[in-house]
């Protein structure tokens, strides 16, 4: 479980209206800060005070915060805002990081996705990890972690699919009966992706409390192994008989079996509708020879 939480590369936290992800984002930031990494935060959706609430002062002093919430379009012209808009802010963040393990938190990626062209945002995200690796000199995979908060309901399948294909880890938040769960999909470069589900809760001091399984009073956990698909189920011929069909099959007599019922039926004079008759009215042109009704004698 701890290996799953050692998140590197681009990590998407996909939350929804019912299960919000900002608390999980803050919990991961706290974990990274306590682990000695540099933490840079791009705040766009909530104010700085609201975001910093909940962190204690030692962690707060370690967080480097870039504020795009108060004045995103730089109308106040104070000169301390980052140039180039949100994209410039991303690039500046990247330049200001020192080599070493870094966690960058984007709160939120949805805000950026709604204001920037998707392709440009994808390129900027890839460039961040690459430039950090160049500067750090170490392998790209181990150094930079970009946590992006993404609101599922805001975007269509196109941008979500594009970002998913770039992300190394996708954490989808959902839950049942008051207990939040995270479905974590890890894509490693040349291996099969792994899917894991963690049940967790975020405590008031922003530490992460992982539970082993779903809460007891919830609905029974759905069977993790989907029932085996029966290959004989959607055929055009029937391999399995129902009970009624089986009874009908057993009670049937074969057409060429001579049973006693058949014998009685043959001996009895047959009822009218069982036989068919041909009714023919000869017209004026017919010339029926009574000795040769078929007309096939060559006379």
């Amino acid at each position, binding site marked *: 479980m701890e290996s799953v939480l050692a998140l590197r590369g681009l990590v998407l936290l996909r939350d929804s209206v019912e299960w919000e992800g900002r608390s999980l984002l803050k919990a991961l930031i706290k974990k990274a800060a306590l682990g000695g990494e540099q933490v840079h935060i791009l705040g766009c959706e909530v104010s700085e005070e609201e975001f910093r609430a909940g962190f204690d002062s030692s962690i707060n002093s370690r967080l480097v915060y870039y504020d795009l919430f108060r004045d995103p379009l730089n109308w106040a012209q104070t000169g301390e805002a980052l140039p180039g808009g949100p994209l410039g802010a991303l690039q500046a963040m990247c330049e200001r990081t020192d080599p070493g393990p870094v966690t960058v938190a984007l709160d939120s990626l949805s805000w950026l996705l709604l204001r920037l062209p998707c392709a440009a945002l994808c*390129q900027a995200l890839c460039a961040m990890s690459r430039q950090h690796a160049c500067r750090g000199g170490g392998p790209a995979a181990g150094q930079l972690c970009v946590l992006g908060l993404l609101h599922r309901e805001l975007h269509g399948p196109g*941008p979500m699919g*594009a970002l998913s294909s770039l992300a190394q880890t996708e954490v989808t938040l959902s839950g049942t009966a008051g207990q939040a769960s995270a479905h974590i999909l890890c894509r490693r470069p040349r291996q099969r992706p792994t899917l894991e589900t963690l049940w967790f809760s975020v405590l008031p001091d922003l530490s992460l409390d992982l539970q082993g399984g779903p809460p007891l009073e919830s609905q029974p956990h759905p069977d993790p192994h989907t029932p*085996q698909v029966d290959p004989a189920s959607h055929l055009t*011929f*029937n391999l399995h008989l129902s009970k009624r069909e089986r009874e009908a099959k057993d009670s049937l007599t*074969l057409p060429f079996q001579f049973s006693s019922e058949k014998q009685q039926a043959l001996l009895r004079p047959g009822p009218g509708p069982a036989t068919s008759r041909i009714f023919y009215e000869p017209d004026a042109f017919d010339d029926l020879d009574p000795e040769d009704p078929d007309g096939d004698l060559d006379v």
Partner: protein
Amino acid sequence: MAAVATCGTGAGSTGSVVAAGSKNNVTSFQRRGPRASGSDSSYSRLVSIAGTRPSVRNGQLLVSTGLPALDQLLGGGLAVGTVLLIEEDKYNIYSSLLFKYFLAEGIINGHTLLVASAKEDPADILQELPAPLLDDNVKKDFDEDACNHKTAESNIKMKIAWRYQLLPKMEAGPVSSSRFGHYYDASKKMPQELIEASKWHGFFFPEKSSSTLNIEPCSLTHGYIKLLQFIQNIIYEEGFDGSNPQKKQKNILRIGIQNLGSPLWGDDICCMENGNSHSLTKFLYVLRGLLRNSLSACMITMPTHLIQNKAIISRVTNLSDTVVGLESFIGSERETNPLYKDYHGLIHIRQIPRLNNLIYDVSDVKDLAFKLKRKLFTIERLHLPPDLSDTVSRSSKQDLAEPSKLLGPGCGVMAGGKKHLDF
């Protein structure tokens, strides 16, 4: 039947030994090899390019895709001057493997490589290529054994099961190390000296782009323009289009483009439905023109599962020559289906080109599945598993008789009734 001939002569023969003497021939039509005096000098020159051979069907020059099984399905190989489009699987595991096989085949044959990517540095891609299975001593022993078995049993084979010889042979394992089509070990990396001895050009889009924000509508995206210019420069400077007649040794340029159409190239067809929908199609059109005029072959992998507008996918298919789709079972409900439990995914051959030909060279096997074993990537026919359960009961003639009784004796129509019967 001609398709069988292709398969029969495929594995062991190169262009110059196609003539009589090859014991795999099942057809009486044989291509005359080049005479000693060189009657057709251009023909002999084309044949002498390493790693190519003329197609048995239409004389087109073919290169191997790196997977001999895929070569068989495509009618012998990839024709020089055409585009092979691979529709990526969802997590881009198997399509990147096919991409690497293509590049590795180029290195083994001594072709020049051009690797273009927007996600990974081409130098890193080349470090990850699979190692070739080139153990010649082992191969010779294997071939000898195969020959002995064949001569001993050939008479018996003819009498008992001679029809089986007519089935197309799907080679599932390393049979021979020929000059066309090599096998690779996916668990090992290609030795460094082979990579360094090869000639390659890399195009890594983030390094070549100057500005990333200008996207003009209805024209080629910035990334595509740069890539086309790069390809054109390489083709012209290295003389692949015949512009430098002093070069006496011709070679093939293998172009590999990874993840074309993804947002990292600056193209937003994966993100939006009404994006810059003509950029990708224009790129493919111009690329086809560049390729037809030069001795080059191109493999493109494209994440078509991300493209939102389905009309674009059909346009892209029309503009490419050969289209192969990969569908992996990871994460889908087919993973638990017992039909597919031996395989990792399906291969769909969506399009085969009709080059200098009136008919398509389509293989008659349509249900193909692939499996990535530890060392090899195999493509096999999809077989239904045998149904060995006890609960299966076959429908008997009594079920047929019942509905026919209901319909009346005068009715000659087959029982349509309440049973879903079909013969």
